[in-house]
C-alpha cells in the first residue's frame, strides 16, 4: 500500500526522523511504537500531509505520492486522527466532520446543509456512534464524544490508509471498542492502518506487525509471531527493563490520618459522594468515562463547586472552595484535558514548570532569581526525562508525551502534599511511565497522598492501595490492594 523511502526531518537542531524506511502492505495493521519524542507523530503527520519531509519520498499504491496538505492526502486515500487535535468549538458536529470539504456540497455557490447533515449521520452510524446527532453544537458533547467525532472526520474520505495517533488513550471503554471495531472492518476490507500507541498489550492484540522507532531511526520491525511486550519494551528503550513496572509490594497500608475528605458531594452526575483520602495513600478511582470520576477530580481541587456537601482538608479544617485554596494548601491537580486545562502551550517549559512554585522560590524581598527557576526546571527535565533542547523550548514544539511530562513536572516541582491526578500517564511511554510509577511510590513513602483517576485498569490495579469504582455517579465497589484483583472483576462492577 505505502512505501516510505529515506524520509528525514529536522526541527532546527532536533533531528526528528533520520532516513526512515517502511513498507505497509494492503490489509495490514501496522503498529508504530517508540519513546516520547522518538518521531512517531512527525512521521505520521508527514504521511498524512500535515508536515513536509526535508528529504525522502513515498509511494502509494505503486505511484509516487507527495501530499501538499491533509485534504490532498485524504483525496489520495490517507487520513489521520491527530494526537490531541480536538474539534472546532461553536459549530455543529456535521460542520466539524466536513470542515475543509464544504465546497463539495455547494451548487451554484450555495451550500446544501441538509446533504451534509445526512452524510454526517450516515458516517456516525457506520462507525457505531449513531447516537451523536449531526446538528448538535459540538460544545454540548463530552470529551470522548468529541474524540469520536474526530474519528468520523478521518473516515469522511473513506481512506485506504488510516493513521491513528494515540487516540485510544483519550478514549474510554466505549470509544476504544468503537475504534477497534473500525480497525477490524478496515482490515477486512483489505485496507491498512498505521496504529500509534503506548499501550503494549493493546498493540499486541490488534497489530499484525510493529515498527519500532528510537530517536528518529527505525530500529526494527516485528512480525506477528515475534511480538511480545518485553521485546517491544526493550527495543523502544534500547536496554533491558527490569520486570516490575508497577509497585511490587502488596502491602496496601497507609496511615489512619485522613488528609482530605469529601462529604456528600454532588456535582454533575456525581451524587452525594463520600471519600476519605489518607496520608500516604494512593487512592485509585475508576469507571467508565462518564461515571463521574473526572467531575470528582474537579470538585476535589475546587474547580467545580459541589451542589451539596463539601471537600475539607482535615489538617487545618479548611474547605477547598476554589483552586486557589487548594494550591495554597499544597494540593496539585493534573487535568485530563491537557492542552486546554493543564498546560500553557505558547509558554516555555520553564514558565510552565515554575508557575505554581513561585511562592516557594521567593527569596529576599519576595524576588525570584532566574537561577532558582532554571535549577528547578532542569531538575524536573532530568527526573522525567523530558525530551527537549532546553528549558526555554516552547511547549507547543514538544511531542505529546513530553507535554504531559511538563504538566506532571509542574506539580512535582512544587512538592505538593495531595495530588489529584486525572489520567496522569496518558500518552506517556513505558520507560517514563515506569519512572512515574516509581515516583508515585516514593511520594507515598514520603507520606504524600494521591488520588489517581484512571481509565487504565492495569494501572489502577498495579498502583492503588484502594480502588473506588464508580458507576453513574455513585460508588459501586471499593477494592483493597491485592494480587487477586483482575480486570474482569473491575469491568463487571463498572459496566
Amino acid at each position, binding site marked *: 500500500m505505502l512505501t516510505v523511502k529515506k524520509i528525514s526531518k529536522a526541527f532546527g537542531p532536533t533531528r526528528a526522523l533520520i532516513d526512515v524506511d517502511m513498507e505497509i502492505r494492503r490489509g495490514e495493521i501496522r503498529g508504530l511504537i517508540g519513546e516520547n519524542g522518538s518521531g512517531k507523530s512527525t512521521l505520521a503527520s508527514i504521511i498524512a500531509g500535515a508536515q513536509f519531509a526535508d528529504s525522502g519520498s513515498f509511494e502509494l499504491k505503486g505511484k509516487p505520492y507527495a501530499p501538499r496538505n491533509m485534504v490532498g492526502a485524504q483525496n489520495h486515500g490517507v487520513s489521520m486522527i491527530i494526537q490531541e487535535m480536538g474539534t*472546532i*468549538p461553536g459549530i455543529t458536529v456535521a*460542520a466539524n466532520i466536513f*470542515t475543509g*470539504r464544504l465546497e463539495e456540497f455547494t451548487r451554484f455557490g450555495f*451550500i446544501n446543509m441538509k446533504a451534509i447533515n445526512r452524510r454526517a449521520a450516515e458516517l456516525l452510524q457506520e462507525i457505531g456512534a449513531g447516537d451523536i446527532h449531526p446538528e448538535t453544537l459540538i460544545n454540548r458533547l463530552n470529551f470522548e464524544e468529541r474524540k469520536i467525532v474526530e474519528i468520523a*472526520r478521518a473516515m469522511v474520505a473513506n481512506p485506504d490508509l488510516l493513521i491513528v495517533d494515540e487516540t485510544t488513550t483519550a478514549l474510554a471503554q466505549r470509544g476504544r471498542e468503537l475504534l477497534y471495531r473500525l480497525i477490524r472492518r478496515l482490515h477486512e476490507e483489505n485496507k491498512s492502518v498505521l496504529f500509534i500507541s503506548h499501550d503494549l498489550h493493546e498493540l499486541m492484540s490488534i497489530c499484525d506487525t510493529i515498527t519500532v522507532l528510537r530517536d528518529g531511526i527505525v530500529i526494527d520491525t516485528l512480525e506477528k509471531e515475534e511480538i511480545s511486550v518485553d521485546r517491544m519494551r526493550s527495543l523502544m528503550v534500547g536496554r533491558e527493563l527490569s520486570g516490575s513496572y508497577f509497585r511490587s509490594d502488596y502491602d496496601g497500608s497507609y496511615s489512619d490520618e485522613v488528609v482530605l475528605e469529601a462529604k456528600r458531594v454532588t456535582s454533575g452526575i456525581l451524587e452525594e459522594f463520600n471519600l476519605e483520602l489518607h496520608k500516604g495513600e494512593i487512592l485509585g478511582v475508576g469507571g467508565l468515562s462518564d461515571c463521574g470520576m473526572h467531575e470528582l477530580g474537579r470538585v476535589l481541587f475546587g474547580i467545580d463547586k459541589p451542589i451539596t456537601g463539601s471537600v475539607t482538608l482535615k489538617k487545618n479544617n479548611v474547605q477547598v472552595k476554589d483552586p486557589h485554596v487548594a494550591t495554597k494548601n499544597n494540593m496539585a491537580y493534573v487535568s485530563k484535558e491537557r492542552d486546554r486545562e493543564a498546560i500553557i502551550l505558547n509558554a516555555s517549559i520553564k514558565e510552565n514548570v515554575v508557575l505554581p512554585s513561585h511562592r516557594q522560590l521567593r527569596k529576599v524581598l519576595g524576588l525570584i532569581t532566574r537561577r532558582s527557576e532554571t535549577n528547578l526546571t532542569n531538575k524536573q527535565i532530568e527526573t522525567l526525562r523530558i525530551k527537549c533542547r532546553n528549558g526555554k523550548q516552547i511547549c507547543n514544539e514538544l511531542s505529546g508525551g513530553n507535554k504531559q511530562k511538563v504538566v506532571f513536572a509542574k506539580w512535582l516541582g512544587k512538592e505538593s502534599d495531595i495530588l489529584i491526578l486525572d489520567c496522569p500517564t496518558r500518552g506517556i511511554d513505558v520507560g517514563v511511565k515506569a519512572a512515574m510509577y516509581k515516583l508515585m511510590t516514593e511520594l507515598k513513602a514520603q507520606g504524600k497522598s494521591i488520588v489517581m483517576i484512571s481509565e487504565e485498569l492495569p494501572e489502577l490495579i498495579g498502583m492503588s492501595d484502594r480502588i473506588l469504582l464508580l458507576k453513574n455517579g455513585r460508588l459501586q465497589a471499593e477494592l483493597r490492594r491485592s494480587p487477586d484483583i483482575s480486570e474482569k472483576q473491575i469491568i463487571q462492577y463498572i459496566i
Partner: protein
Amino acid sequence: MGDKLKRYAINTIKTLILPVLVIALFAVLTGGRSLSKRMLLVTARQSVMPIIISMALVGNLTLGMWDFSAGGVVLSAAIIGGNLMKLTNTGTAGLVVICLVIGVVMTTLTGFLNNRLRVPTIVVTVGLVLIYETIPRLIYPGGVTITAKYTFLASSPYCFIILAVMFVFFYLLYNKTAYGHNLRALGGSREIARSAGLKASRIIQTGFSISGIFLGIGAVLHISTNGQLLTVSALGSVPLIFEPMMGVFLAFFLSRFCNLTIALVVGTFTMTALTNGLVALGLPATMRSITSGLFLLILLCISGNQARIIKWREDRKRARMLDAKHNT
C-alpha cells in the same frame, strides 16, 4: 411538532423583548411622544445605516478581529463618491457604483495589509483609519455637498428596500455558502481549521473585501442622509462604527434565540432606538454616550451570566431535594 412551535415562539419573544422594552421605556418617559408613528419611522430609518455597517463588522469579529478603519472607509467613500458622482454626472446610480468600488478597494487593501504585515489587526486598522481619513482631505478638503435630488435612497421606502436586499445578501452569504461556514470554523479554532485544509489568509481576505460592499452601501446612506459631509481627522470617523459595534455585541447575544442576521437587525435597531430615545428626552451628547455605554454593559453582564444564574437555580433545587431525602 408542537414542541418545536412552542420553542420557536419563546425564542421569538426573547429576541424581540429588548427593542420592545427600550421603546416602551421611552414611551413612558416621553409621555407617549416617542411612540408616534412618525418617531418610530425615524428610528427605523436611522437604524438602516448602522445595521448595514454592523454586517460589515461581524465577519471580522467572528475571527476575533476588530476593523477600526470601517468608519474611515464609509466616510471617504461617501466624500469621494459624492464628488465623483457630481464630476461624472452619473446621478444616484453612479453614486452607488462609485461608493461600492471605493469601499471594496479600500477594504481589500485593509485585508491585504492585515495578512501581509503580520501585526495585530487593531494596529493595522488604526493606522489605516488615519490614512483613509486623510485621502478625502487631500483631494476634497471642503468635503462634499450633494443636492436633494440625489438623496432619496436614505428616505423611506428606499432605505428599507436597500436594507432588505442587504439582509438577504448577508443571510445567504453567512448561512448558505461554504465561505460563511468556513469563516465560523476558522473563528472557532484557527489551528484545527487550517489542518483541515482551510486557507486562513484567503478567508480573511475574502471577508475584508466583502465587508467593503456593506461599507460602500453604508457610505451611500451616510451621504444621502446628511446631504453634506465634512472631512475629519485624528480618528474622527470612528464614532461612525460605535452604534454598529454595540449592535454586533447585542447580536452575538441574541443569536442564541434567532438567526444571526435577524439578531444584527434587532440588536442594532435597539441601539438606535436607545440613542434616539435619549435625544428625544433632550439629553446632551455626553450623557447619551454614558447611558448607551451603561446600557450595553448591564445587558452584556446579564447575558454573560444568564447561564450561570439558571444553573445556580437548578443546583439549588437539586440540593434541596437531596437534602430533604437525606434528612428523612
